[in-house]
């Protein structure tokens, strides 16, 4: 197990180092951020001064090594645009994204798996057919459009829910969260639904496919022959057996949604990290882009690592494979 952890850790370091080089070169290739943000009255001299101040006059490899040197000391640099430490900037917005994403991914998973298992268990019933039909919509309708329609319907026409932004927040452990307040919850509902739709559809399809396959196996036949009730079979045997692909997808979706909830965050003006990164790309705020993408790489590696551990806990085959 220890070897497994060390191996994963080394992988993570390599992934992040490669990531930083790619991002650095990519951003460098687009051009000089100064040319986007420099005001029109600036003289040639002022422009040169601004470039020097940000260290953009140095050759690429020097800029990269300065950045990596600071990174190793735990300093991700300061945003060009906001002049505050990048970690503070990202950290201040992470809770907003975190609560939105957790609420939507968890509810999508719980609801999706329940509906999917039902649809797989009784494939011929009209309810199952409805569930599957609706899930196609979840896949095929673009999420920015759904977001706009949700706003139009629930916020503009009916006036039940706010059109965007984050509601009232309360501080828990020094971090501002909005889900404990009623106003905060009412702000979360629409973006969470918007974010959850695609994942819900995917979970339904995964759970249904898994259920249909497992229901035909000998395990279930023998369990039935042994007189175990259908409810117990579903809970104890079926759920465990279909959970591996679902967990894998859950992990990946959690990671990608945390990192790239940008469409939903933009439409609902949700002050999360997705919006931050898009805005930073818009002005080539290099420290934020590089730091953020490295953090995302770290996030994915961590989530995958945790998921692997959880597999080992659930599935004895994986556990034995890892120890042998």
């Amino acid at each position, binding site marked *: 197990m220890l070897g497994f952890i060390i191996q994963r850790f080394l992988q993570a370091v390599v992934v992040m180092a490669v990531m930083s080089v790619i991002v650095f070169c990519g951003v460098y290739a687009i051009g000089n951020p100064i040319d986007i943000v420099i005001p029109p009255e600036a003289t040639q*001299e002022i422009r040169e001064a601004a470039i020097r101040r940000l260290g953009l006059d140095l050759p690429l490899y020097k800029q990269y090594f300065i950045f990596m040197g600071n990174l190793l000391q735990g300093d991700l640099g300061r945003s060009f645009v906001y*002049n505050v430490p990048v970690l503070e900037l990202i950290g201040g917005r992470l809770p907003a994204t975190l609560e939105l994403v957790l609420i939507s991914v968890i509810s999508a998973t719980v609801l999706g798996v329940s509906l999917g298992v039902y649809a797989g268990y009784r494939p011929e019933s009209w309810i199952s057919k409805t569930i599957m039909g609706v899930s196609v919509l979840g896949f095929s309708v673009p999420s920015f459009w759904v977001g706009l329609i949700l*706003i139009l319907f629930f916020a503009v026409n009916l006036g039940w829910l706010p059109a965007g932004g984050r509601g009232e927040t309360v501080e828990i452990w020094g971090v501002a969260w909005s889900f404990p307040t009623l106003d905060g919850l009412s702000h979360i509902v629409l973006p969470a639904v918007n974010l959850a739709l695609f994942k819900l559809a995917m979970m339904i399809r995964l759970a249904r496919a898994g259920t249909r396959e497992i229901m035909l196996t000998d395990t279930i036949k023998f369990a039935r022959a042994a007189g175990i009730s259908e409810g117990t079979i579903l809970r104890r045997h079926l759920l465990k057996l279909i959970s591996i692909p679902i967990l894998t997808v859950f992990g990946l979706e959690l990671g990608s949604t945390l990192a790239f909830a940008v469409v939903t965050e933009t439409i609902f003006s949700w002050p999360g990290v997705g919006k931050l990164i898009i805005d930073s790309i818009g002005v080539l705020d290099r420290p934020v882009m590089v730091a953020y993408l490295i953090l995302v790489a770290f996030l994915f590696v961590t989530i995958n690592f945790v998921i692997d551990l959880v597999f080992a806990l659930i599935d004895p085959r994986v556990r034995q494979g890892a120890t042998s």
Partner: protein
Amino acid sequence: MMKYTKFLAPLAVTIGLTAAAAASAQTLTMGVRGGPESMDPHFSALGSHAEAAKHIFDTLVWSGTDLQIEPGLATSWKPVDEDTWEFKLREGVKFHDGSDFDAEDVKFSIERIPVVTGPTTTTIYVRRVAGVDIIDPHTIHIHTDGQAATLPNDFIRLFIVSSEAAADYSTPETAAEGFNSGKAAIGTGPYKYVSWEPKGDLVLERNDDYWRGKGAWEKVIRKEIPNDSSRLAALKAGQVDVINYVSSVDYLALERDSSVDAIKGDSVYVMNLQLDQREKTPLVRAKDGSELAENPLRDLKVRQAIDHAIDRETMVDIVLEGLGKPANQMMPPGFFGSSEDIPMPEYNPAKAKELLAEAGYADGFEVDLYCTSDRLPGDGAICQGLGQMLTQVGIDTNVNAVSKTVYFPAQSRLEYSMFMNGWGTLTGEASYTLGGLAHSNNPEVKLGAFNRIAYKNDDVDRLLQTGATMMDEDERRATYEEAMEKVMADKAYISLVQLQTVWGAKAGSVEFTPRFDEDTLAFFIKPAN
């Protein structure tokens, strides 16, 4: 008119509006496209940054609705010798923390700028300042590097911070912390700082002792909502009272919507087509792909042909949905130095073809046109319209509307031959626009920094250099008008359209006059009664 149609609105909407109005009778919530980058007014010269700063801080010189300069914290100013301006400061003005405003604060602010500014550098506002002398607490002498006739114009965004409150927060490392926490965000402006987070809400409360008088709103919330549709939805859902930058598509729908007022105003932005004047230019070629003997854009006849090929009326009516005006020069009419003697170019494709033939390009040629697609309303669409119009007269145009993050760096590397972007004359006078674009690029005289087409007309250079030193206003105006006429006649810069911007507000709720610089300022927004 809105008052009478209001009762026709659906019941739910009426109830919603009444409830919201009752809860926030003294609060103005504004939904705006962009926000400040810091609470330090000296950090950035970005328009939305200055707009937010104007709520908390004052400037020495104020620029009014039409960008005319007016007294601000300075009550009067005059040149005392060739390179010195004297500013008289307003007496009895107090900072939000109760301390007095005086010459020390002005000197401190001017000297602080070069130290704390970010990449969107505010050094531009003090670029001509060589030194500051305090004569008495309400008189200050500004020494300039040579004659600086437009110094008061430079000062319209020179924000004055408190020399006491900001004393410890004036290095690049400490400035953001001190101002963003509110400790140093102490100004003399109409509103006091309450809270702010980057890309989030800026919350302000009224400064009851403001020298212009008390503002109408006790509390102002400035919400940043960058997405155009979301901002409009927030207005319609009653979450915000006023929004800026309604898109041209939504504008048509708003005109028919009785629950929302659409307020249209002229913008300082003019779209200019720019034609590379270098002897070798990278993105122009014969239609068969072979290299041309010389750069056709250097031929005046070709440039005139391009001008005649452009149908500005159609561009405004169809492409911009009516939100613009045809333009014949780089600044809106009425600005200092814009000329009334420049004719509106005639749309005449037949003549364009004739001119091309005379110039030896009867078969036309091929060119790659580059424009921004995400900087100003309609820029990408104008680009496509332009491409079709030029192709019709025989210049095969490949349209590339790209993101500003790609466009501006490539433009500064001189990679384009024919390109279009907007230019806003934010100071309201010509030295800003012509000095940056039309003078040949010459760092020694600090002019032409944005001339990316190697345009050089010796007469224009001479006029711009003498104009910059003329202290007499009428003479200076005539000089810039002449320069503008010459630049526009050369057709290396072809102005296309002047944009207009639209604000949205709950019907009958507020009154305000649109500003040319597109600022949305709570102090100047009054509740309608």
